[in-house]
């Protein structure tokens, strides 16, 4: 059965936009940047003929003279005393815990000669492996975690403590703060420590010690984006203010109301790992079904089997409707709502049916921050018997603990003069609180204000003292992300700057633990004794001695540090007592219903930047958003219908106004899948004191994006992500977004394949059963591809069912392979450098009307020349009774795309200098030093995966990212060449890792074990979607996957014999 689906990457492709078609035909999307290249600092060519003769004469003489000179002297400085564990040239791996967010994934840190260069998931950590307690569990890490290593080498971090904005030293700062704290406590004035969610036992003890020393001290947790709604709902329902553990792998039916659990919600890596376990169609195991109701098209929504656009403002009544349907079946009391809640095509009723059929094996989650809605969700899960099965309140999560009301209370207390001193730890309320301005003024009133921020962020700039915290790779710490499941953080590098970890600062002011004495040897980077003597290490040990017992303590503790985790058996899961009566909630829900024509703004976090705390990290900006494929900005996502009615096109801007706050000239994209009557805007952008990357008012660097936090407020206790009744009008300005969605397009060709689960059960080759095209080749099959070949034949398989499109692989690849960051301007010119991209394809789905029935309209190739999209729009509008309703109902396929290492590679045959050749291990080799930059290869590549270095990106002040300062360069992988201007580059299948793996095997006189060589993308993937290995090893995982019926090569008909096999996407729906 030939797929009847027409895929498109963006509206410009769908509408055959002129700019798009022109750009596609041209070899280069823009004119060549000759002038800019020539103006690069070391390329002065402004000279006349006379000058030329002079220079010529001079250089001939110079060359003659220079032949007397020697090449520059290079020095080698060995260790004076080599640390025993270090072998120069051989990496060391340490277990630690990611500090990118409070989710606390376990990480494995790769360090070369004492400098960390790569982070990956630790398979032992229950967070990074998604509660997999088996021995072969694999750890994943998200894009934020991958990129967080760059923050360590950020040269804009504070190098010293600050006092009133100017540099000071620890002794002065400590003395003054201690005195101030004592004065405050003596005067009975309150002291508050405001931190993000904390679950580190040692840190919490340090704070407790602080609080017991200063009687007026209290500790408040506050998160920029909180889960206040769930916490409060659980407090009301179960008397426990906590977030349960969700087991997505145990659920046969997953229903999510706007919760982006694969992208940003609570613990995305953990959830992705668990979710994917049940998403691979396999014999003897039922694939789960995932239904998503949402307004913005989220990463999770793109992966759903069924996705229904839902107006977020009405979520309450939809939840109530679902509740009532289940309650009706179960014989419970219903919620009395006046407004009938049903979505198009009885989808709620059908969802209720599915949930009831899978009672106890289902999971309903909601991304709302409204405690009342979360209580309904609790009620639904309780009726279905999901507690104790897929929801676990006994082995709960500690990852987010903050409720919003605490911060409002603090602000009131400061203004009332009850609190005289505040210490900010990992929070930046001046930026991320909706009353940021009020906070800034309040901080001014304080007698003592301290921030632990590692850079001079918005809050730190307002504080009298800044005591910069270490990066997590420089710190000792522990964590308890899940109840009784511990993780450890150990330093991998000595502090780069004169910083001190926050816990030590607190302890030095309270119990008088002093700053570690600077080891003079450490300064000279010779012999580092500093960590052994870190007082916080000793402190942490004393905390752990109580837990582990004194007997064999050091051995036991060292084992914990080695593993990075201390996992214990989970507690038996109980069904909690529940007696909440929801029946009276109806009037509240009725009051929330959106009026006709009202537009709701739905705030969300981007998969890359999240809450914006790492806004100075260029990789997170450069990573295209998994859904919109926009880099370097946030923007308003508009539904097509609204855009048409307001005459807003791509490149325009809008003004939005709600609750007395307005944002003007915000860039827009028309987002397929955006529910009509809603718009979306990402939080975390618009920083004014992030630094040279994220924006800094002090340095006159424009903010990246706009700050949406002022909208994130709530009338009752918890802040609401939904802003009701937004006025949207077209702005005056125009703005070009750096959107990669149609770059490198391979439009018009059949590149993704999908089938329904039902069809797959009947025929495992479903969706992939196109007759093989006739292949002709003028080449002989090389020896290494014949049977009985002795060497390796490297290949990759990517399961489109597993890949969620999260983008972790993109960042991982770039860091492993020293890929430069090019910035917004270059991306607009289609010059992004990433070796791996994730192509996101849209297709109109089956109207979203009926689950389980085919829709005759979407059969066959409906997008024909004669018909055109405009005619289709009209026809569908008539059918659906609303304009552009089909734009709401798109389905998405994510396809990671990198060099396919073709056996008969088109790039190789056109290179005039043999810079790209084939190896006997099936690799398409790129030799930079042979390349003369003709770009023929790039043009001849059917997959468009070759990248040209338009500039020398290192040491180039126009690209002031990590490659342009001494500190930032520390992250460079020493085993991979840093490319220069004028050469092509592309995915190498991580050849450096292949060579390393082979060499290890040779040294140990054995063959290479399967799974020993892992590419950077594979290692990072939280979904285990990528498998790499040797095809000449019959037993390898890759060989097994190559025999899988779902496997296909992209553009197989070209007979380029690609080495990457994709596995057909199987959707658990009745229709494709």
């Amino acid at each position: 059965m030939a797929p009847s689906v027409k895929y498109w990457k963006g509206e410009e492709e769908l509408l055959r936009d002129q700019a798009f078609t022109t750009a596609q035909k041209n070899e280069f999307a823009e004119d060549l940047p000759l002038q800019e290249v020539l103006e690069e600092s070391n390329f002065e060519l402004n000279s006349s003929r006379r000058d030329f003769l002079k220079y010529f004469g001079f250089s001939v003489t110079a060359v003659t003279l220079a032949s007397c000179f020697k090449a520059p002297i290079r020095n080698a400085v060995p260790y004076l005393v080599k640390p025993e564990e270090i072998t120069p040239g051989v990496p060391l791996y340490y277990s630690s815990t990611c500090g990118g967010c409070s989710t606390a994934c376990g990480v494995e840190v790769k360090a070369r000669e004492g400098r960390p260069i790569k982070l990956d998931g630790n398979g032992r950590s229950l967070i990074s492996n998604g509660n997999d307690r088996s021995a072969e569990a694999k750890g994943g890490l998200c894009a934020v975690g991958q990129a967080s290593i760059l923050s360590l080498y950020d040269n804009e971090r504070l190098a010293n403590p600050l006092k009133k904005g100017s540099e000071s030293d620890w002794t002065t700062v400590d003395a003054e703060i201690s005195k101030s704290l004592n004065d405050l406590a003596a005067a009975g004035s309150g002291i508050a420590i405001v931190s993000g969610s904390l679950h580190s036992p040692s840190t919490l003890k340090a704070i407790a010690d602080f609080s017991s020393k200063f009687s007026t001290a209290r500790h408040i947790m506050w998160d920029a984006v909180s889960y206040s709604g769930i916490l409060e709902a659980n407090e009301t329902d179960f008397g426990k203010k906590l977030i349960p553990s969700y087991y997505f792998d145990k659920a046969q039916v997953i229903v999510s109301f706007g919760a982006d659990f694969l992208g940003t919600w609570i613990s995305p890596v953990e959830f992705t790992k668990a979710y994917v376990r049940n998403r691979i169609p396999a014999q003897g195991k039922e694939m789960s079904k995932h239904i998503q109701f949402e307004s913005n098209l989220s990463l999770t929504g793109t992966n759903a089997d069924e996705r229904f656009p839902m107006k977020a403002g009405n979520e309450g009544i939809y939840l109530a409707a679902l509740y009532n349907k289940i309650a009706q079946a179960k014989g419970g009391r219903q919620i009395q709502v006046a407004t009938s809640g049903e979505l198009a095509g009885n989808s709620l009723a059908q969802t209720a049916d599915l949930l009831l059929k899978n009672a106890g094996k289902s999971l309903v989650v909601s991304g709302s921050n409204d405690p009342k809605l979360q209580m309904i969700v609790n009620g639904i899960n309780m009726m279905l018997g999901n507690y104790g099965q897929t929801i676990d309140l006994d082995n709960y999560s500690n990852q987010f603990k903050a409720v919003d009301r605490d911060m409002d209370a603090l602000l009131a207390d400061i203004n009332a003069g009850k609190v005289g001193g505040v210490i900010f730890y990992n929070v930046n309320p001046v930026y991320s609180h909706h009353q940021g301005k009020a906070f800034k003024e309040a901080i001014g009133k304080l007698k003592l204000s301290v921030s632990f921020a590692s850079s001079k962020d918005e809050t730190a700039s307002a504080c009298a003292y800044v005591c910069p915290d270490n990066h997590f790779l420089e710190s000792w710490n522990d964590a308890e992300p899940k109840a009784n499941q511990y993780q450890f953080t150990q330093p991998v590098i000595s502090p780069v700057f004169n910083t001190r970890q926050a816990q030590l600062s607190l302890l030095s002011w309270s119990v008088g633990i002093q700053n570690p004495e600077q080891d003079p040897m450490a300064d000279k980077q010779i012999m580092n004794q500093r960590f052994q003597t870190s007082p916080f290490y000793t402190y942490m040990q004393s905390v752990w001695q109580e837990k582990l017992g004194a007997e064999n303590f050091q051995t036991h503790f060292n084992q914990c540090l080695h593993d990075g985790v201390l996992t214990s058996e989970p507690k038996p899961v109980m069904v909690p007592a529940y007696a909440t009566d929801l029946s009276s909630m109806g009037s509240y829900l009725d009051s929330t219903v959106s009026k006709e024509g009202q537009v709701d703004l739905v705030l969300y976090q981007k998969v890359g930047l999240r809450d914006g705390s790492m806004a100075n990290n260029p990789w997170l900006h450069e990573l295209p958003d998994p859904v919109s494929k926009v880099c370097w900005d946030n923007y308003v996502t508009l539904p097509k219908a609204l855009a048409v009615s307001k005459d807003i096109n791509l490149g325009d801007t809008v003004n939005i106004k709600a609750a007395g706050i307005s944002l003007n000239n915000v860039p827009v994209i028309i987002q397929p899948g955006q529910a009509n009557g809603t718009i979306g805007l990402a939080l975390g952008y618009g920083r004014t004191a992030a630094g040279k990357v994220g924006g800094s008012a002090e340095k006159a660097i424009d903010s990246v994006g706009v700050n949406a936090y002022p909208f994130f407020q709530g009338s009752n206790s918890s802040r609401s992500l939904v802003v009701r009744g937004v006025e949207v009008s077209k702005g005056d300005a125009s703005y070009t977004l750096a959107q990669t969605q149609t770059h490198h397009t391979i439009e018009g060709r059949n590149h993704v394949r999908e089938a329904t689960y039902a069809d797959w059960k009947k025929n495992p080759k479903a969706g992939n059963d196109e007759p093989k095209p006739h292949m002709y080749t003028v080449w002989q099959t090389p020896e290494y591809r014949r049977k009985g070949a002795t060497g390796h034949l490297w290949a990759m398989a990517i399961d489109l069912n597993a890949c969620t499109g999260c983008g972790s692989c993109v960042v991982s690849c770039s860091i492993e392979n020293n890929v430069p960051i090019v910035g917004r301007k270059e991306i607009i010119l289609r010059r992004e450098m990433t070796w791996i991209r994730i192509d996101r394809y849209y297709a109109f789905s089956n109207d979203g009307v009926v689950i389980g029935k085919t829709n005759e309209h979407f059969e066959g190739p409906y997008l024909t020349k004669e018909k055109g999209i405009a005619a289709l729009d009209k026809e569908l509008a008539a059918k659906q009774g609303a304009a552009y309703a089909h734009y709401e109902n798109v389905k998405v396929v994510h396809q990671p795309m990198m060099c396919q290492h073709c056996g008969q590679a088109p790039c190789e045959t056109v290179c005039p200098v043999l810079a790209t050749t084939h190896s006997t291990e099936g690799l398409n080799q790129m030799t930079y030093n042979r390349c003369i930059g003709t770009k023929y290869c790039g043009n001849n590549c059917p997959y468009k995966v070759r990248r040209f270095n338009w500039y020398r990106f290192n040491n180039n002040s126009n690209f002031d990212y990590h490659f342009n300062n001494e500190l930032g360069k520390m992250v460079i992988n020493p085993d991979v060449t840093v490319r220069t201007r004028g050469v092509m580059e592309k995915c190498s299948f991580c050849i450096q890792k292949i060579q390393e793996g082979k060499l290890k095997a040779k040294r140990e006189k054995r063959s290479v074990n399967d799974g020993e060589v892992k590419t950077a993308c594979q290692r990072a993937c939280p979904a285990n979607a990528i498998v790499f290995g040797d095809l000449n090893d019959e037993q390898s995982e890759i060989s097994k996957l190559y025999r899988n019926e779902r496997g296909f090569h992209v553009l197989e008909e070209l007979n380029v014999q690609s080495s990457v096999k994709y596995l057909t996407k199987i959707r658990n729906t009745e229709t494709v």
Partner: protein
Amino acid sequence: MRVLHQLQSKFRLAGFVALIAAFPSLNAQDAKKGKEIFDANCASCHGIQNRGAGPALKDVHNRRSEEWLLKWIKNNEALRKSGDAQAIQVFNDNGGAIMPAFGSLADADIKDILGYIKEESAKAPKKAVVAPGGVDKKDETPDSTLYVLLALIGLFLVVFLLLARVKRDLDRLAAAGQGEAIDETPKGNFIQRLLPGPLARMNPVVLTMFALSIFGILGFVQFYEYGLSEVGVQKGYAPDQPINFSHKIHADEYAIDCKYCHSTADKSKSASIPALNTCMNCHKSVQARDKYDGEISPEIKKIYTALDYDPEKPANEAYGKNPRPVRWVRIHNLPDHAYFNHSQHVNVAGLTCQTCHGPVQKMEKVQQWSQLTMGWCINCHRETGIQVAQNDYYEKLHEKVKADIAKNGDKSKYKDKNGRVVVTAGMNGGLECSKCHY
């Protein structure tokens, strides 16, 4: 330069022999035997005038009784355990450094040693005798020598030409004097007249071309060498190092294995310059004082300075707080885009260090022996065999080779023209770009 070095070291050796010969002959029988025993057993830790790992032994016979010394030397641990206050004192004074027990020495032997110490103690500290050539002069670069030579050759050429012309004129005048007819109009042009006879008879165009091509070749050679050095090819590069470390002494005379110091060569991409702590394994006690009039060798002193180590302190004390790392000059510099791994070559291929680095053990001062160009690498990969039989990694390849030879006999591609079985690195993909460039 190498010749010069060899000369220098010969001189140095000669000086050393002279020094030994200058010693007054030893008269006491027991002291002579004592020296032998001392050298064999004690000298690695003790000096007479100076301390090594253990204290200096000058006048030890006055400080301690012979009976005590016998006990101490035979088993100092037992003596300490017996509660002997002196023994414990000595042990503590030297920072608890453990001296091995010498139970195997007979009392007479120990007495001989003491005799030797007694005799040595009586002598004044040695006078400095600097061996000729012992101090390295700053080397002149070979390039400047070449230029001086070239300039001289040029000068001589001009002088020669002038003289030739003078001779010609004189000959003509002489001929005129003898009444022979003088050809008033000399044949040929100015240059031809300038040149001596045989050259003048040659075609001037050919001659000019010839001269130009000689200059051209010389120029090209210069330019080529310059070009090579510009791209990092610097064969023969032997820079001065901050410490005049002699591989000849260490690797040849003392036959210390290369991998004792370059210990990571078989497990890492980098063979690594040893940490100075490695030097101290020996140089805590080896101080070459005999060559420097009782003073520590200035080169060894550089190690102590670098580590901020005080040789007068007990041997196991930590280094000082003010170390100054040594900045060696890198000799072997591969370009950044070439990946080279020592362990692949040393461990897997089993090559000796000398294959690429040349006879380092004969080098007073290390120089780059090989060209280290890609062509040089590739040639070796084309010629050098893989040890397929000894390494299970190559099991499949080995089977294939065996099968191929069984099938094709001498015509097998795995046999060279002499009939030897050769499986080269090149045959196994060792010539492919991304084996070294990525």
